[in-house]
């Protein structure tokens, strides 16, 4: 049978290539760890306990830690599906070569998204164990924290990859920064949603990272409610739409 699950070999290609560049690995998870130490612990020393949007009172560092976990999942998948994907799409033409074989555009998209999830998942796991060691994990629900990271990663990977197919120059990556930076700062990462006026709250609720933070905070603090299911579906939908869009665009760009 021709062409069964050929995304496996897109993944294989990335694993083989990455064996030579393992040192790049370090950069991905360092950032959220640094934030946890500087903001969570440093700033946390000055700040009183925080009341979450669901009425739980926790230390500031314990409030920030789940948000940093969600952020690490976002960063991990964005790096591979935007910047690295663009380089392979436009410059090294890795996918032109693959599409000359029985592989199809969605094999490329699925393979690359899975690779970003493996890499992002490892970052998240490292961060999770740092948080666990420091006592920020309060509940057995946190067993689901790593799978939830994969869900967050998939949403950002799908949408990020789709958006990247519309980019024509490295300058356009400013837009990625422009999207990620405010999301990182305002998705109820460093303070509860309640501090915003109502109108702004709705805007924040559209941000995928907000839903990622909600899920991780719920799991790590043991404050699990039905709203988390809604957040999960939102992220799942973004992942699916992103994958669909990215596959179509790869086809439009390369099979001309």
């Amino acid at each position, binding site marked *: 049978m021709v062409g069964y699950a050929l995304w496996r*070999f897109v993944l294989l*290609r990335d694993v083989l290539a990455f064996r030579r560049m393992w040192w790049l690995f370090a950069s991905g998870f360092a950032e959220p760890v640094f934030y946890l130490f500087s903001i969570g612990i440093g700033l946390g020393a000055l700040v009183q306990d925080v009341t979450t949007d669901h009425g739980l009172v926790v230390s500031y560092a314990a409030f920030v830690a789940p948000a940093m976990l969600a952020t690490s999942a976002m960063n991990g998948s964005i790096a591979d599906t935007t910047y690295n994907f663009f380089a392979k799409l436009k410059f090294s033409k890795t996918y032109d*070569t693959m599409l000359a074989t*029985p592989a199809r555009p969605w094999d490329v998209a699925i393979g690359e998204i899975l690779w970003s999830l493996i890499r992002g998942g490892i970052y998240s796991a490292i961060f999770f164990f740092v948080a666990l060691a420091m006592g920020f994990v309060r509940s057995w629900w946190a067993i689901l924290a790593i799978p939830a990271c994969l869900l967050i990663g998939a949403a950002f990977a799908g949408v990020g990859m789709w958006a990247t197919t519309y980019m024509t120059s490295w300058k356009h990556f400013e837009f990625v920064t422009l999207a990620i930076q405010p999301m990182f700062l305002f998705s109820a990462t460093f303070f509860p949603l309640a501090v915003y006026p109502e109108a702004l709250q709705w805007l924040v609720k559209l941000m995928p990272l907000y839903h990622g933070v909600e899920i991780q905070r719920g799991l790590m603090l043991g404050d699990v409610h039905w709203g988390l299911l809604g957040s999960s579906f939102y992220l799942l939908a973004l992942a699916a739409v992103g994958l669909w869009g990215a596959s179509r665009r790869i086809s439009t760009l390369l*099979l001309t």
Partner: protein
Amino acid sequence: MCRRRSPALTLPTVTDDLLLTARDLTKKFGDFTAVDSIDVEVRKGEAFGFLGPNGAGKSSTMRMIASVSPVTSGELRIFGLDPAVDGQQIRARIGNCPQKDLLDEELSVEENLWVYGRFFGLSRAEVRQRASELLEFAQLSERHADKVEHLSGGMKRRLVIARSLINNPELLLLDEPTTGLDPQARHVLWDRLFRLKRQGVTLIITTHYMDEAEQLCDRLVVMDKGRIAAEGSPRDLIDRYSTREVVEVRFDTDEHAPHAAPLEGIGERMEVLPDRILLYADNGDAATAAIAQRGIHPLSTLVRRSTLEDVFLHLTGRTLVD
């Protein structure tokens, strides 16, 4: 994009030895027509060439055959299959050697073959076995663990060809296989292609080198501006569109046009180029003698055999390499 067989345009039954048929095959990019309703047939085991200058539509044709570029209109069948419907099945049986050496620079020489082979459904063991055979064939065995970026141009080209053979293709597509290679590397490559042909692999080659087409192709079409200008074996085409020999006459001057009139009548036909005048004659030496008899003293005269370049010049009024 997904054109179905229309009842008015049925192809003759694909006989056993026809590997590819194209009828009114057309490729447009917006308003630009890259390939303008060409008809082509390629038989099994044949080495078939598309000869033409850059921009003639050769690569667009090759990409449609490789089933990575949708046909705009007309019909194309490869192995009797329609690329719009069975692209995956067709690609599984083709070896594709694109114009640019698109190797994976982040992988080693052998990893390039391994990964590529897996896409064709070969197992890990099969791919390793096949890769080592092909590296032998491409004379790259010693470089198997090297990074691709350290290979020379000729080696990269051979690696691309090795890669395109990993699935034991029935049809090998070679888009400008020797462009940018030094003469020695070209001969090594030609030798490898001859071997494949002897093994029964059908070759479709594009080139803008006349000598390459004459060396490699049993049959070829001359393409110009998206259309087919002529078709036949290299020998046929030369016989049909040129004379046996050509005399290249140069004068010590910037402008050759004024020298044309006195040469009128020598040979069968004359072509005036900026830097020389070509006299087409079956007997070059006789033509040279005739020039001297008229008391004309060119800077140099060179008698040579006709080539496909002369055919192309005759058909289009332009030189081929641009």
